């Protein structure tokens, strides 16, 4: 049981990393970014490609992040910007289309076979918590998540740029009138979110024991969304908390014999139940505002 908790924290931090990007996009434009997972997968493919071609790991990581950035900017330019004023649901479908295209392209160019990428940090048993060995790579994931969550919260609360991004989401016209280019902000936001997604993918791929086309989307996107909702779609630290909660919930479910022997796929049931429960009883999430859901204003219908 205690081991399940540790496993949950460790797996959940992976979800949290992706949830950070989701929250960032939502905070700045009210969009549920379906393609967030694929930013991660694209980064991993680039990392693998570069590393297999002999590029040193650190440089390969940067290349991977660059690939994620590129895909984020392309998405922003060709999908998000034209649909800037469209209903958010339309954008959801559009980003879903982007992720499907990415999966299709990965299958086409990369084929469906399983590939493996080595972890960035090698030592496997850095520490042992309740008998569960936590590797360096896992610690890296947790540390990155915490650092980014804190930095992100500070960004939105204290910097001018962060304020501008928030302003854009609430009142684009006023923001433009203040002399801030909506276009640039949008590019910045999506680029950052894509890099976050890429980072999440690169750091967790070695832990997944193998990757293939669409692996981030297929394995982690829905838990990450649940984590983001659970923590509060507007809260970056919430993404961290949400990720851990979802990870622990899944892990406890898997290790409890009652559930896992009689209910196939019990973790997905739990995630679904968690999502519905949060949205029914506390839609603003654990760290959301007390008074209820405060979504960015819907634009034209």
């Amino acid at each position, binding site marked *: 049981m205690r081991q399940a908790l540790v496993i949950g924290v460790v797996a959940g931090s992976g979800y949290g990393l992706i949830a950070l990007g989701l929250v960032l996009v939502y905070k700045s434009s009210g969009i*549920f970014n379906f393609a967030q997972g694929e930013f991660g997968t694209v980064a991993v493919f680039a990392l693998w490609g570069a590393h297999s071609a002999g590029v040193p790991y650190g440089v390969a990581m940067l290349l991977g992040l660059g690939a994620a950035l590129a895909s984020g900017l392309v998405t922003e330019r*060709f*999908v998000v910007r*034209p*649909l800037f*004023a*469209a*209903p*958010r*649901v*339309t954008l*959801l*479908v*559009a980003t*879903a*289309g*982007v*992720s*499907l*295209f990415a*999966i*299709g*392209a990965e*299958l*086409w*160019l990369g084929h469906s076979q399983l590939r493996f990428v080595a972890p960035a940090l090698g030592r496997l048993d850095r520490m042992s918590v309740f008998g569960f060995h936590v590797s360096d790579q896992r610690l890296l994931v947790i540390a990155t998540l915490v650092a980014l969550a804190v930095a992100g919260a500070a960004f939105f609360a204290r910097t001018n740029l962060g304020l501008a991004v928030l302003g854009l989401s609430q009142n684009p016209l006023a923001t433009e009138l203040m002399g801030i280019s909506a276009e640039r902000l949008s590019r910045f936001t999506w680029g950052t979110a894509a890099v976050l997604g890429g980072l999440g993918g690169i750091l967790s791929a070695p832990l997944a024991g193998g990757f293939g086309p*669409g692996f981030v*989307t*297929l394995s982690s996107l*829905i838990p990450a*969304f*649940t984590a983001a*909702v659970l923590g509060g779609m507007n809260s970056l630290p919430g993404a961290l908390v949400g990720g851990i909660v979802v990870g622990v919930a899944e892990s406890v479910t898997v290790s409890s014999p009652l559930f896992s022997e009689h*209910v*196939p*796929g*019990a*973790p*997905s*049931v739990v*995630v*679904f139940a968690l*999502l*519905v429960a949060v*949205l*029914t009883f506390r*839609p603003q999430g654990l760290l959301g505002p007390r008074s209820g859901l405060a979504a960015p204003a819907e634009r*034209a*219908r």
Partner: protein
Amino acid sequence: MNGHSTVGWIARGTAVGGIAALVLVFPLTRSGIEVNIFTEAVIYAIIGLSLNVLLGYAGQISLGHQAFVGIGAFTSAYMTSVHEQNFVAALGVTMVVGAVQALLLGVVSLRITGLYFALVTLAYGRMAENSLFNITSFTGGSTGQAAPKPAAFASDYRYYYLCLAVLAIVLFIDWRLTSTKTGRALLAIRQDPRVAASFGASLKRYTLIAFVTSGVFASVAGALLAHNTTSVVSSQFDFRLALVFVIMTVVGGLRSRAGVVVGSVFFALTDYLFDRLHLSVAINAIPVLPDLSPDLAPLVVGPLLLIFTLTRHPGGFGEMLRPFGRWLRREPSPHTEIDLRDGERVHA
């Protein structure tokens, strides 16, 4: 062209005749395996129509529609092979199961709306894929479940006509739905729920009706799908399929029946067409890109079409077909059209 001239009549007759020949007669000239593929296209049209009820009429997004279809498929397979019921009885049970699970989801949608509901449907689809469809006694696990064709429609050709008949029925019901009070209420609700409520339309009731209708259509389609391939396995109903359904409905054009049918058929036949028209050869000729196998074509072409539709041409196929439909029905073309951002067209 004046609608009343003889030439006009002949032209219309030819057009209708041509379509009828394509749909009814052409398949007889092809082999059983190809007809199998055509049948799948017909079933996809039914699925598109079912999603259209939700997405186009009720404005509810469903990213887990593969679960609706899959539940129908497994229920029918289970009833016919494990419980030895005949096809009609199995279909009845399938419709009930489809209606119930759609109703449950509909009840959830009353409380949780918009984007968040989209997430819920997504999580539901994933749960169905990982959990429900892996209950081995129900779904046969990774080996799948058998779904034999009914004896009267055992040949590929007959089964194709059966599915065409079901499509016709679904189209009919869909038409009645929209042209009656329920349909108008749904459309009004979708436009503006508060205005609709002020007219006394019960939001809840009509939304639930939409869900149930969509669920029944989808589960029937699932049953037909299972029997078409005579076996069904859970790995068929993955998240990618849900996106394909959404794409084909959106690209087909929301709220346009003809558009949705054409869009769905197009997506179902993409790999077939790709193969037959040797388009893969054209792409493979481009030296830099690796070979594109026909069954990847829908995954690459589809999303591109989706994004194109959403950004440039929101009416999709339906909008393209509208002039043709008007011509067929001898309607005068409208003088003005009010173009709304998300593809609605109101004829002045």
